[in-house]
């Protein structure tokens, strides 16, 4: 597969919360190749957002970041601000969960797009606005030239997410990280936005990282999925493998919780229990207390991720004998 586009190695994040320091990421390893579409799933609080915010240095000064984020020959962890600014938006773009509040309420759509174009492509004035209109058109906004004069509050959530996507495209990035881009939108709009992301990826050879709670959404839109739990990637495999031979009981739990579209209607099997708080993790495997396959050995140590077959990693002591 060659050298990955971005190679995150042993990424840790500690939040300084006054008296105590809370570890939110415990060594995340994640490599993404050019043009790939990778899903990142896991329950709330598992560290999906923090992984990418940390990689781009967007967590602020109360977060301490360890490990490496190798991108285009540089380590972004600890890189000077100017290096990070040159990567953000231009090389790695990110869009967020709540599009309407991710746009600045006091500026027109056109101004915000023009700002990005000025930053990444040195465009200004009429040229920037013309390009902004082209981008809006590209993301499926009708009457683009007129929409440039609108404020974010004058557009719907779905429209604003399209604007955010247009803004992300303005830098012609190598990677687009979409952090739950459709959570705040209703179902039909959600499908349209995901379709748009697919289309853009097909046309531009840009890698896509799709963060979601929903394994179903990830399965339909990506080639590979990384399952996160309590600040670690517990399984990483191609979509087909995840559905046919999940190696981690947590992944199996997420699969069991998926609504079955073809088969007879049945009750969703939510995983019993709750995600542990980051300052109160159990000994050994963080999933152990909720795991149907729990045994004493699970508490002995955090299970390392092992490669079962090429391209399939899992961090569970049962995985060795199980699917390998």
């Amino acid at each position, binding site marked *: 597969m060659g050298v990955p586009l971005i190679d995150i190695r042993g990424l840790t994040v500690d939040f300084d919360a006054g008296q105590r320091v809370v570890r939110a990421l415990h060594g995340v390893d994640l490599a993404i190749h050019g043009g790939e579409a990778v899903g990142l799933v896991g329950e709330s609080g598992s560290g999906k957002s923090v992984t990418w915010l940390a990689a781009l240095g967007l967590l602020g000064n109360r977060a301490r970041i360890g490990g490496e984020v190798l991108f285009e020959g540089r380590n972004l962890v600890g890189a000077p601000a100017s290096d990070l600014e040159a990567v*953000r938006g231009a090389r790695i773009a990110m869009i967020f969960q709540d599009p309407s*509040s*991710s746009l600045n*309420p*006091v500026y027109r759509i056109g101004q915000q797009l023009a700002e990005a174009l000025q930053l990444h492509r040195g465009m200004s004035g009429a040229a920037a606005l013309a390009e902004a209109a082209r981008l809006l058109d590209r993301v499926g906004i009708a009457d683009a030239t007129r929409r440039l004069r609108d*404020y974010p509050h*004058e557009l719907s959530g779905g429209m604003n997410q399209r604007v955010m996507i247009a803004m992300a495209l303005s830098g012609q990035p190598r990677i687009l990280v979409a952090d739950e881009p459709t959570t705040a939108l209703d179902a039909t709009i959600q499908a349209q936005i995901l379709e748009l992301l697919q289309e853009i990826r097909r046309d531009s050879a840009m890698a896509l990282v799709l963060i979601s709670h929903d394994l179903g959404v990830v399965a339909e839109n990506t080639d590979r999925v990384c399952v996160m739990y309590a600040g670690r990637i517990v399984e990483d495999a191609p979509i087909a493998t995840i559905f046919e031979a999940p190696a981690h009981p947590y992944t199996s739990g997420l699969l069991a919780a998926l609504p079955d579209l073809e088969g007879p209607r049945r009750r969703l099997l939510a995983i019993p229990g709750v995600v542990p708080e980051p300052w109160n993790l159990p000994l050994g495997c963080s999933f152990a207390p909720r795991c149907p396959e729990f045994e004493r050995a699970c508490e002995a140590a955090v299970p390392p991720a092992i490669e079962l077959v090429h391209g399939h990693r899992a961090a569970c002591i049962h995985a060795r004998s199980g699917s390998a």
Partner: protein
Amino acid sequence: MMRYLAGRLLRALLTIFLVVTFAFFVLRLSGDPALLIMSVDAPPESIEAFRKSWGLDQPIWMQYLAYIGHALTGDLGNSMRDGRPAIQLVLERVPATLAITVPAFFLKIAIGVPAGIYAALHRNSFADRLTMLLSVAGFTMPSFVLALLLVLVFSVQLGWLPSSGSEGMANAILPIVTLGAAGAAILARFTRSAMLEVLGQPYIRAASAKGLSWRRVVTEHALPNAAIPTTTIIGFMVGTLIAGAVVVESVFAWPGIGRLLVVSVANRDLAVVQTILLFVAATMVSANIIVDFVYGWIDPRMRTAPR
């Protein structure tokens, strides 16, 4: 828009009218001006004559109707003390008051706004904690206490500045500083929280994710948004330019409207007190209207309803 404007104006006039009415009755029911203005041993006949000449012998609602009637023609009555028109007495004092409230107003903004922004940008730092400590001190301390402290230090101890009077510029400094410090404290705190609120918004992180430097994120994305609530508070401070210096003027014997008010209330100089209250109500109400319009102008969400 025109309807909104007319409604706003009508509400403003109603507010002023209510203030004037309220003041009229409270003043008249709380003491007899004749007894205060005439000496204690004045013969009953002359007290009666005084009452008659000022219409105080009439039933109160008659007095009220007469007052409103005159006021509508622009006649706000005469001072019982020196007989001159109340409006003239009040207008005479306006320059002195503005001479301390206007510089104090700019002092508040010049100190309060940057301090609040700095504190927010360096949240939990030593500078932030110090700013907030001073700010709490500044607005919990009554202004006469601050005034007395300043007098103790700069007039009594150091002898640099006069403690009272109105002979020259030096006399204005302590009143200005007293007023300015209290306002700056309020404004610093307010600006800080407005700024923190904005810095926590998703569009700030999104602006950073776009690749903007932190400096540009702050100046181009955070400040314009934090300016919206801050401008509102500054606008309300405009409303206190006339009436905000009552205590300070009294402490420093500064011959402004505030001091005239205190003296006139003590003397039950009815027309003067009412004229001052009318002025105060009018400035506050105008300030509110201005704030409303500025708000609509700087915040696009106020201009257009969502589609």
